[in-house]
């Protein structure tokens, strides 16, 4: 059964569609990569999946039901989105991760012992437990990104959407982040991330969506999708057919 499905979805901010007639589906337990050149509509696609924006045409489904039938509060328990940029007011790391539990307690209430436990576990998985009392605004880029991911984990949703979670990170943190997301997907979560680095997508994703000019150009496992012809056509870069000597996954390098 598909966790999420897009059916012939079109969206435009002005007159020109940013996402054009896209249909796709995502299953539980898979790590999806969304790739494509700048302006291809990747972020917009993620916002459509999150319900932040509504399709002009077509329908987004969650568990087979139209996304529009879900209330905002309900959606917050189903789908977590990590946007491209976040603001960092002086919350402590723990407070920041605790915001991920906000959909689960009332506006005048306080987090329960269970909420605290989930927050602690999320901080441990992402390796930031030792930073719990620090101000999020005083952390390095890599640490902040892990705080944001910990917050999304604390939300305990079945769908996790991330917009460029690896930008501004060094190689080690890029790989750690992807491992973390891959592991999350193995717990049955549907993970979809916009990735600019095709090699990360090739190494870690089970399935990639290639967007170009608002349309779904190609999709499938990275080894079937990342052929030199497609890279040349979509990204306008000529690459030789390379494969990782150990994993056999494609390598995209000029």
């Amino acid at each position, binding site marked *: 059964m598909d966790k999420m499905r897009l059916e012939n979805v079109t969206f435009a901010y002005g007159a020109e569609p940013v996402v054009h007639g896209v249909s796709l589906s995502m299953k539980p337990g898979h790590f999806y990569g969304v790739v494509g050149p700048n302006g291809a509509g990747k972020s917009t696609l993620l*916002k459509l999946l*999150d*319900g*932040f924006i509504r399709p002009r045409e077509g329908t987004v489904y969650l568990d087979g039901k139209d996304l529009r039938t879900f209330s*905002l*509060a309900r*959606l*917050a*328990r189903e*789908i*977590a*989105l*990590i*946007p491209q*940029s*976040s*603001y*960092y*007011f*002086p*919350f*402590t790391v723990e*407070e920041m991760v605790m*915001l*991920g539990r*906000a*959909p689960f307690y009332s*506006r*005048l209430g306080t987090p329960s012992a269970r909420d605290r436990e989930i927050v602690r576990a999320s901080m441990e998985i992402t390796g930031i437990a030792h930073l719990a009392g620090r*101000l999020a*605004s*005083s*952390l390095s880029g890599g640490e902040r990104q892990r705080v944001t991911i910990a917050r999304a984990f604390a*939300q305990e949703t079945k769908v996790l959407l991330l917009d460029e979670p690896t930008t501004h990170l060094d190689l080690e943190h890029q790989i750690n982040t992807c491992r973390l997301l891959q592991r999350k997907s193995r717990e049955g979560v549907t993970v979809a991330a916009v990735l600019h680095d095709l090699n990360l997508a090739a190494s870690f994703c089970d399935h990639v969506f290639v967007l170009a000019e608002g349309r779904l150009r190609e999709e499938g496992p990275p080894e079937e999708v990342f052929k030199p012809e497609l890279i040349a056509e979509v990204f306008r870069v000529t690459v030789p057919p390379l494969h990782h000597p150990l994993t056999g996954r494609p390598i995209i390098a000029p």
Partner: protein
Amino acid sequence: MSRPLRRWAGALLIVFAAAVAATALGSVRVNVRDVLAILASRLPWVGSLIPRTWSAAHQAIVLQIRLPRVLLALVVGGGLSASGVLFQGSLRNPLADPYIIGVSSGASLGAAVALLLVIPKGWAGYASLPLFAFAGAVLATLTVARLGQRRGRLEPTSLLLAGVAVGAFLTAVVSALMVLRIENLQDVYLWLMGSLSGRTWVHLSMAAPYVFSGLLLALWLAKDLNIYLLGEEAAHSLGVDVQRVQRLVLIIGSLMAAACVSVTGVIGFVGLMVPHALRLLLGAENRRLILHSFWVGAVFLLAADTLARSAFAPLEVPVGIVTAFVGGPFFIYLLKRGSSFYG
């Protein structure tokens, strides 16, 4: 008692002690025991049991002159500070203040129109002045809110720009009015600097309902405001209706500030400095920040006003001058100390 409870009891005690001390201080000294006795004598049930050992003049000074002014200082100081938290949050800008989207310039124009064109000289007794100022503040804020929308959504940057533009325009109109009606210049000028001089129970009754209901609503929205600070998309994903929260917070903050400004004139720095300083001390969590800003702002303005009326007695300095005088250097200190805070 639990720790937070003890802390709040401590805060209340500080507010009460400051209020009693400020009521006792002034050109005519009333001793603290008399102040307490006069206050106690007004309580229901026990009031009649207090032996009357004070003079009628002292009673009049305490109840008719000082107490309303002291309470108004507390209410306005708390109101401006809590409102400052709301503006800094909803504009995601730690340097925003309650006046940034037009409340003060609108109120100034309203007051200037009243003082220069409508109300005759010797204005202090006229309770209609705050009504003019309040109307001006609300109209200006609505204009800014209207201009600060893009595609039907409020945007912090557009709001800030619209606030600056409308503010500059209205200030120019006020200046033009002042030049045209130069004989009433002093009244307007004093009003623009902000003062609690001569304010009575009427003024308190105009500001207090807005400030206290605003405070309660702000606390009700504090959790949403915390999430809102993460940015629009993240907040939406955490179940917060961003546009609704932003609208509500701006309306509540503006009404609180407008009610304060319209009875006291433009008292600067409190609504900027108190929330900012407390955020450095306590962090960004808004429920905590709103509550602490309220009582600290209240005591701060009370202290400033007491200084304003007693430092050069019998001459009174507008309290806005005192807050700016203290606020400027304090802000420079914060700037030097907490420069890496917002990363």
